[in-house]
C-alpha cells in the first residue's frame, strides 16, 4: 500500500502546527519521521489515522483520494497506530485492552477463551511472555504497557503501521525483538512509519527519513546517503554542539550512601555510594528493578531492609514529602500519570514542588512565581506560547522538560532521574545533559536510570547494572562498553 499526503495544514486555534506538509510512504519500507519536539510529527500521524482532520491538503491511498474522518475510517484502510502517549484503560485486563471494541464473539457473547489465546499469541510474538493476558493493565510497568500497545497494533494486521516513539520506554532486549518484527513486516510489504528521538535506532532500522521543522516539511533522505550531522542540521536548522557535553567537575565527598537496600520483593541487596558532583547511571533490562531503587529511596515504596544516609545523616523518609524535605528530588518516569497535572498550566506544574519558595505565610506571591517560571522556561527552552497554557497542550518532549523544571527551582542534594530524556529531541537532550552537568558542578549527587545505553555510558561516571532485582555489578563508565553492560544485565557473568 502506498500513501501520499500532500499540502497538509493544521492549526489549533491561532497556532499553525502544520503548514503544507508533504509525506510519501511506500509499501515495504521503514520510514523515519524526524523533527524536534513540537515539530508536528504526532499531529501529522494523527491526521493520517483520523484522530484529527487536516484544515487543508489531501491524502491519497494507492493513487485514490480518500477522506479519513475517524479512526474507524483509517482502520478500514488498514492503518494502525501506536500512539506516543500510552492509552490503555488501567482497570481493564491486558486482553480486554487489546481487543477493545473488537472482542472475539461466540453466539453474541464475548469468547474470553479465544481472546486470551489470541492475546497470548501476539504477546509471545513481541517476546512479552511474562505479561499475563488476564492481569490488570494499570498494574504493568510503563515498558510492559508499551509492549501491550505494540502487540495490540500488530494484532490489527495493518498494511500501514505508524509507531510514534514505541521504544521510548523499552530496553535493549525488547527493542531487538521489535526490530526483528519490523524487519519481518517490511519483508511482507507492510509500510512502517517510525518516529523516534533515538538516533542510533533510526540509522539501524530505517530506509528513509522525512524531516519536519516547525510544522514544515524540510526534506526526505535515503538513509544510506545521509548521516547524523545532516539530519540534525535539517531538524534543528543549525549545527548542534556536542551531543553529550563534557563535564568538568571536582568530585566531592560522599552524599548518598546506600547499603543492602531491599523493598517488598522487587529489589534486594542494593548498595552504592554517590559523591557530590557524581552521576551514577543505573542500567538493566525492563523489570530489573531500576525504578524501584529510586522509588524506595524517595519513600514511595516501603523499605524493608538496609541503610541509607544523606550527607552522613540517616535518611528515613517514608513519604515523598519527607524525602523532598531531606533534599531528595525525583524526576519520574511517566509524565502523564506521575509527572504532571495535565489540567494545570505550565506555571502551576513547574512550581508545584517548591511553591513554598514563592509564598509567605501560605500566600503565593504571583509576581515572584511568574518570574521564576519565566526563568525556568527560558533556561530549559520549553516551547510554549504562554506559561499559562495547560501543560497538556505542549508536545511530549516539552512536557518532559516541565517535569524537569519542577525540581530546579531549588537544587536538591540528591537528584533521582528516571528516564530523564524520554521522548526529548536531540537538541533538548543536550540541554538536559547541560543541566545535569550544571547540577553536578554545583555539588548535587545524581542517580540516573536510563534505557538508552549511549546516554548512560556518556553521562555517567559509574554504572550500576541491575539484573532481576539484584545488583549485577558497578562499572566504571570510562572503561565500560555496551557489551559489558548488556552481558551483566542479562545475567551472563
Amino acid at each position, binding site marked *: 500500500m502506498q500513501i501520499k499526503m500532500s499540502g497538509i495544514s493544521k492549526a489549533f486555534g491561532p497556532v499553525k502546527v502544520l503548514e503544507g506538509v508533504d509525506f510519501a510512504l511506500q509499501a515495504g519500507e521503514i520510514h523515519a519521521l524526524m523533527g524536534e519536539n513540537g515539530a508536528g510529527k504526532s499531529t501529522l500521524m494523527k491526521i493520517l489515522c483520523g484522530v484529527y482532520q487536516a484544515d487543508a491538503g489531501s491524502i491519497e491511498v494507492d493513487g485514490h483520494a480518500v477522506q479519513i474522518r475517524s479512526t474507524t475510517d483509517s482502520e478500514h484502510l488498514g492503518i494502525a497506530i501506536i500512539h506516543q502517549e500510552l492509552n490503555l484503560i488501567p482497570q481493564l485486563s491486558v486482553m480486554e485492552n487489546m481487543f477493545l471494541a473488537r472482542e472475539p464473539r461466540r453466539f453474541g457473547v464475548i469468547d474470553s477463551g479465544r481472546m486470551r489465546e489470541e492475546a497470548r499469541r501476539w504477546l509471545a510474538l513481541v517476546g512479552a511472555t511474562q505479561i499475563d493476558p488476564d492481569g490488570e493493565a494499570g498494574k504493568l510497568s510503563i515498558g510492559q504497557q508499551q509492549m501491550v500497545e505494540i502487540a495490540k497494533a500488530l494484532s490489527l494486521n495493518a498494511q500501514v503501521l505508524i509507531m510514534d516513539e514505541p521504544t521510548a520506554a523499552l530496553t535493549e532486549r525488547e527493542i531487538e525483538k521489535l526490530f526483528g518484527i519490523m524487519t519481518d513486516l517490511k519483508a511482507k510489504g507492510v509500510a512502517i512509519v517510525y518516529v523516534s528521538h533515538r538516533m542510533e535506532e533510526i540509522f539501524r532500522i530505517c530506509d528513509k527519513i522525512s524531516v519536519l521543522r516547525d510544522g514544515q516539511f524540510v526534506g526526505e533522505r535515503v538513509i544510506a546517503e545521509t548521516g547524523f550531522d545532516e539530519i540534525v542540521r535539517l531538524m534543528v536548522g543549525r549545527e548542534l554542539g556536542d551531543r553529550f557535553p563534557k563535564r568538568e567537575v571536582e568530585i566531592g565527598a560522599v552524599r548518598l550512601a546506600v547499603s543492602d537496600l531491599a523493598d517488598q520483593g522487587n529489589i534486594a541487596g542494593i548498595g552504592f555510594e554517590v559523591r557530590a558532583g557524581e552521576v551514577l547511571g543505573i542500567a538493566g533490562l525492563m523489570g530489573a528493578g531500576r525504578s524501584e531503587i529510586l522509588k524506595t529511596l*524517595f519513600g514511595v515504596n516501603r523499605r524493608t531492609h538496609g541503610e541509607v544516609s544523606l550527607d552522613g545523616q540517616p535518611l528515613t523518609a517514608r513519604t515523598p514529602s519527607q524525602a523532598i524535605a531531606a533534599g531528595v528530588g525525583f524526576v519520574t518516569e511517566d509524565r502523564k500519570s*506521575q*509527572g504532571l497535572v495535565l*489540567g494545570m498550566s505550565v506555571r502551576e506544574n513547574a512550581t*508545584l*514542588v517548591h511553591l513554598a519558595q514563592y509564598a509567605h505565610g501560605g*500566600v503565593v506571591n504571583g509576581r515572584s512565581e511568574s518570574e521564576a517560571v519565566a526563568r525556568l522556561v527560558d533556561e530549559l527552552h520549553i516551547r510554549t506560547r504562554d506559561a499559562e497554557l495547560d501543560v497538556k497542550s505542549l508536545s511530549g518532549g516539552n512536557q518532559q522538560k516541565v517535569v524537569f523544571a519542577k525540581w530546579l527551582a531549588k537544587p536538591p542534594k540528591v537528584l533521582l532521574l528516571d528516564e530523564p530524556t524520554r521522548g526529548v529531541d536531540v537538541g533538548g537532550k543536550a540541554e538536559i545533559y547541560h543541566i545535569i552537568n550544571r547540577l553536578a558542578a554545583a555539588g548535587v549527587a545524581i542517580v540516573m536510570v536510563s534505557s538508552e545505553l549511549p546516554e548512560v555510558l556518556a553521562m555517567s561516571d559509574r554504572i550500576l547494572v541491575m539484573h532481576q532485582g539484584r545488583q549485577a555489578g558497578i562499572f566504571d563508565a570510562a572503561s565500560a562498553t555496551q557489551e559489558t553492560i548488556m552481558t551483566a544485565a542479562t545475567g551472563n557473568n
Partner: protein
Amino acid sequence: MTPQQKATLQKLGPFLALLLVCAGLAFMSPDFLSVGNLMNVLRQVSINALIAFGMTLVILLGGIDLSVGSILALASVFTAMMMRAGYDPILATLVGVLSGAVMGCVNGLVVAKGKVAPFIATLGMMTVLRGLSLVFSNGSPITGFQSDFFSMLGGGYLAGLVPIPVVWTLLMFALFWFVLKKTVFGRHVYATGGNAEAAMLSGVKTNRVQIGVYTISGAMAAMAGMVLTSRLNSAQPTAGMGYELDAIAAVVLGGTSLAGGRGWIFGTLVGVLLIGVLNNGLNLLGVSSFYQQVIKGSVILLAVLLDRSGKK
C-alpha cells in the same frame, strides 16, 4: 477569537445565563428588581451559598460530600442545646461551627486514611449524623432560647439594608476566592484533584489536603446551620435534608468539573444565584410548585449541557 477569549466566554456562560434569567424576570414581573426583593433573594440563597462554597473544594478534589445537610442539623442541635442550657450564645455558635468541622474531619479521615470512596463515606456519615441529631433532640425541634446576638446572625441587617447572612456570604466568598487563587493550600487542592499521584510525588501531602477540605466543608455546613437556626428561631433535627443536592447543583452549574481539578468559586456563586433567582422569580410569577420543579430541573440540565458541548 483566540482560545483564551473563547475559554473566558465559556467560563462566563453561567454568568450570562444568570443575567438573561434576571432580565426575563424583570420584564415579566416588575417586583423582581425592587431592592427589597433582591435583598430577599440574596438572603434566601445565603444558606445554599455557604454550603456550596465548601462543596466546591470537595468537588475540586474529585470528591462529593453528601453529609452537609446532616452536619447542618446536628451542629444546630448542639448550639441550640447549649444556649437553652444557658451558655453564652457566642460560645454556643463557635462550638456549633467547630462541631461541624470535627464531623467534616471524620469524613476526611475516612476518605483519606480509610480509602473509602467519598460517595459512600459521606453517605454513611449522612445517616449517622442525622440519626444523632434525632437522638440528641429527642426527635423534636429545640426552641426557647433568647439572644440578640443569635437572632442577629440570621435576621439582622447591616446599615439597615443588607441582611447579615448576605454579609457573611460575601465575606466567605472573598475568603474562598483568595484561598483558591492565592494560597499554597488552594494550589494543592487543584493539584490533588487533577492528579493525586503526581501531586503526591511532588511532595503535596494529599491526605492532609483531603482531610482539610472535608473539614472546611463541615464547618461551612455548620455555619449555614447557624444562619438557618437563627432565622427559624429553633433547631430542627430534620433540617437541611436535600441541601447537599442544591449545593452540588450550584457547584456544577458554575462550571466546576465533577471529575476534579477544574473549577472556580465565582462559578459557584453564580450557580447559587441562578437557582435562587429561579426560585424567587417563579414564585413571583405564581407558577405552581409542581411546575417550578420541572422548570428548575430543566434549567440545570440545559445549562450543564451547554457547558459540556462548548468544551468539546
